[in-house]
């Protein structure tokens, strides 16, 4: 397997009329079979090819729907790479992403067309129109040519994540890394043609690969559940039951929400056989609520950074965890097949599982799962994708996650904390300095410092300046993605500093927790 398009080619042949993807909100309640998905992708791809785009980022600016998946694959079939953008991203962020990409082609739809920033040199395709393109003989030849020239280290997509300087980082994955991930994830989740996914993640984060690619590889079906459905827990579970959804891979906060709202007093998911969670800590208390409600369901904790394409470690819950002790953590377990985790101490010595010291180290990852790095940023790529310190004689890359972990008594890896100011909030990865930078771009803000209350899952922004908290809120609403908006904004007369001149985060934290 060289290119992810082969997944769709094979499955469209084997299950042509089976539904691949289906939306759930009233307007988007549309579906695509595998044959339709492939056909639409190839039609749009032939348009892109006839306009001469090749190995370029194609921006897909559409609603979360089966059509957006087809647009992604249009980029793939045309030998390009896709970058998914959604309307919930604030305009300023979209502009920063475009500044990095300088895209020459965008696929959008009627509802997103007017939201596009000015792109004088870019070609814009309307999905509904491009999907009607007739594939003639020369287009067939062009599509076949793309396939013949494909190399598995070619890029397939770019996912943008929070960057500490305020500029989003574009993580670029290759066909090799995606295939490596999907082959192994399919086995871990036990995906086959009877699997029905309920997808939660937006299509612009790599978390959606779990459903999108395993569905296409295995001839499964995915319901793309709208964000709104996740607001109302009983409706959400009713939806799972009505569609006989049997597999979910959700951020822990979504599972926590259902547990915290005591949803299972009212309704129980009837068909779930596999529940995977991850992207952030899942409190044991909430896991136990789920386990009690669904005693015959498999629960799997997944861990991995976007830089190593999707997930890198997994732990299938196979014993009871005591929730009377708040510090109990569900392990992240062991590396995926064909992936190695190196736990490195501060001198780059390897901490082994059987050393039994419980010593913490940085989680570093090696294998085909590594992405290609940060788009248009060789310096940052070289900083985080470095030579494996245990290999002295030939090039061997590892990705340094910045996550600290250790091995427990079972020899399983356990995640502890971050080396820096990156946090996970509602499953999203956020660099706290990005929020501070955004707040300081407001002319009436002097200084800003953002802290995270892990226990309550809240972002707290402290600032000094002449604007009111509500003015700053308004400003941030148009400059930050929704998930980065502080839950509380607190004005200070003066920012506290440590003796060496840094903002005193500890004092701010105490101030907040005392208030």
């Amino acid at each position, binding site marked *: 397997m060289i290119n992810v398009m082969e997944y769709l080619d094979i499955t469209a042949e084997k299950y042509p009329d089976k539904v691949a993807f289906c939306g759930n909100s009233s307007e988007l309640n549309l579906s695509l079979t595998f044959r339709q998905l492939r056909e639409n992708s190839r039609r749009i791809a032939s348009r892109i090819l006839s306009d001469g785009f090749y190995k370029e980022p194609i921006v897909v600016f559409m609603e979360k729907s089966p059509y957006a998946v087809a647009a992604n694959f249009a980029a793939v079939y045309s030998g390009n790479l896709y970058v998914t953008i959604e309307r919930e991203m604030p305009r300023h962020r979209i502009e920063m992403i475009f500044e990095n990409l300088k895209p020459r082609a965008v696929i959008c739809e009627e509802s997103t067309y007017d939201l596009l920033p000015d792109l004088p040199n870019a070609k814009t395709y309307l999905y509904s129109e491009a999907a009607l393109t007739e594939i003639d003989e020369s287009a067939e030849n062009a599509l076949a040519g793309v396939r013949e020239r494909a190399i598995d280290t070619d890029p397939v997509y770019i996912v943008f994540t929070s960057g500490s300087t305020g500029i989003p980082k574009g993580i670029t994955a290759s066909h090799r890394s995606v295939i490596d991930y999907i082959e192994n994830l399919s086995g871990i989740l036990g995906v086959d043609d009877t699997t029905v996914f309920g997808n939660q993640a937006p299509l612009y984060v790599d978390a959606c690969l779990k459903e999108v690619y395993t569905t296409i590889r295995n001839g499964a079906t995915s319901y793309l559940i709208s*964000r*709104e459905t*996740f*607001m*109302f*827990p*009983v*409706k959400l579970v009713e939806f799972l039951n009505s569609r006989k959804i049997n597999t979910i891979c959700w951020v822990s*906060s979504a599972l926590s*929400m259902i547990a*915290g*709202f*005591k*949803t299972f*007093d*009212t*309704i129980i998911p009837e068909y779930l056989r596999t529940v995977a969670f991850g992207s952030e800590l899942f409190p044991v208390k909430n896991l136990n609520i789920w386990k009690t409600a669904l005693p015959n369901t498999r629960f799997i904790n997944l861990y991995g950074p976007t830089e190593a394409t999707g997930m890198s470690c997994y732990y299938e819950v196979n014993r009871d965890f005591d929730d009377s002790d708040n510090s109990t953590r569900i392990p992240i377990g062991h590396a995926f097949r064909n992936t190695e985790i190196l736990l490195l101490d501060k001198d780059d010595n390897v901490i082994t599982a059987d050393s039994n010291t419980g010593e913490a180290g940085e989680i570093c990852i090696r294998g085909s799962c590594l992405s290609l790095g940060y788009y248009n940023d060789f310096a940052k790529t070289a900083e985080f994708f470095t030579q494996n310190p245990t290999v002295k004689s030939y090039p061997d890359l590892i990705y340094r996650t910045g996550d600290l972990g250790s091995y427990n008594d079972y020899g399983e890896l356990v995640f502890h904390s971050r080396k820096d100011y990156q946090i996970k909030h*509602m499953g999203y990865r956020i660099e706290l300095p990005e929020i501070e930078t955004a707040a300081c771009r407001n002319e009436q803000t002097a200084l800003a410092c953002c802290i995270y209350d892990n226990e*309550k899952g809240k972002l707290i922004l402290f600032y000094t300046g002449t604007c009111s*908290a*509500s003015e700053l*809120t*308004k400003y941030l*609403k148009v400059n930050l993605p*929704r*998930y980065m908006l502080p*839950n*509380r*904004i607190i004005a200070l007369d003066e920012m506290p500093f440590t003796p060496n001149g840094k903002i005193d985060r500890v004092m701010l934290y105490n101030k907040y927790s005392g208030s």
Partner: protein
Amino acid sequence: MEQLLKILQDLHSDIDFDSHTALIDDAVLDSFDIVTIVAEVNENFDVQIPADKIVPENFNSAAALLRLIESLDD
């Protein structure tokens, strides 16, 4: 009502919660907010909003939410 408005105002200081009656339909509130509101209401009003009451109708306005809280209080 004042206490409830304070909770809502803390989330969106730019919205007039006194008069808004389509908080869900107009997508003012999202899933992040619902989680926070339910947690804050449960804590501050010493009630337990059951899952089957977490529906759009009860969150479209501050008044509807207050009615819900009062019905739980009895």
